[in-house]
């Protein structure tokens, strides 16, 4: 968090790296003594995490391009609906589809909407900056917005 970055594209790369790092680290919180089904559940959590990472990538790229926040929110909600759907190929059964409930819950709890608002503030604050400390700048932006 303390490195120097020079434009919005670098900020996107930085945020994606932080998000990826966080998600990989999260795996270490999984319980160790679990049965076979729990391990499958852990795998589905990982699939969810991968899809979440893809959604963050989309959010950051949209913000990087300076698109309107409300249209980004609409786009992300549509994408969650689309990406949460997965095809099931079960031997001897007809193919069917299902949804990953965790992603749907993220959508309906307004998780991504508040994330988009916060990251939009970050991108707006970094605009035009060529040399800064991301940790200090984040605190600065947040305190400015808190004072309003």
């Amino acid at each position: 968090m303390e490195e120097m970055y020079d434009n919005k594209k670098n900020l996107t790369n930085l945020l994606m790296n932080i998000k990826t790092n966080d998600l990989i680290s999260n795996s270490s919180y999984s319980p160790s003594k679990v049965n076979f089904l729990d391990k499958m559940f852990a795998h589905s959590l990982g699939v969810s995490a991968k899809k979440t990472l893809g959604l963050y990538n989309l959010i950051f790229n949209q913000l990087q391009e300076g698109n309107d926040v409300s249209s980004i929110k609409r786009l992300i909600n549509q994408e969650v609906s689309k990406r949460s759907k997965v095809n099931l190929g079960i031997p001897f059964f007809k193919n069917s589809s299902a949804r990953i409930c965790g992603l749907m819950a993220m959508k309906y709890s307004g998780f991504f909407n508040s994330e988009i608002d916060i990251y939009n503030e970050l991108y707006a604050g970094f605009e035009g900056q060529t040399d800064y400390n991301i940790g200090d700048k984040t605190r600065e932006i947040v305190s400015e917005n808190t004072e309003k």
Partner: protein
Amino acid sequence: MGFNDDEQRINELSQEMPKEIAKYFSKVAKVHKGNKLGLSWPISLKKFSKPIIQSLSNDSVMYSIQEGTGTNHGLTKSADNKLSLMINETKEAFKKLRSKDTSYIEKYRLTKALPASLFFLSGLEAYASEASDISKYNENEVLGVLTTAGGLATTTNADDQDVGGFFTTFALLFTTTL
């Protein structure tokens, strides 16, 4: 089976959580409740509720914001030390699995003992290249763990549009059909 019979427990659980995470959990319960469940993950979800809470609150960017505002929303930093410990343990397990000196019975026991974290990483396998960009971890270690996890847990490639693979199929058997 599932959340229909366990609303009280979910309410109790969510009362102890930060507001945003509690909202997430009550929505998970609602998503399950309003639909035909078939088989679901009631026991696993309860067992994994703590790691899920931690994974939602373990957000380095939001943690910086929390620090900047001087507030406390239950956000934490990433578990770097725990991760490197887990990577080392996993590497040891795979060394033993590959070794010719390890008996089949021992290998079977070892496979059973593989940590759930490995299966979480197998779901994230497509992002192995991004993981290697994180300079503070040794590239070979992260890639090694992720690709081995991928090789172990998946028999076909998985992508965003069509998730396939032996383990994935089993995992998804237990998600709610909407």
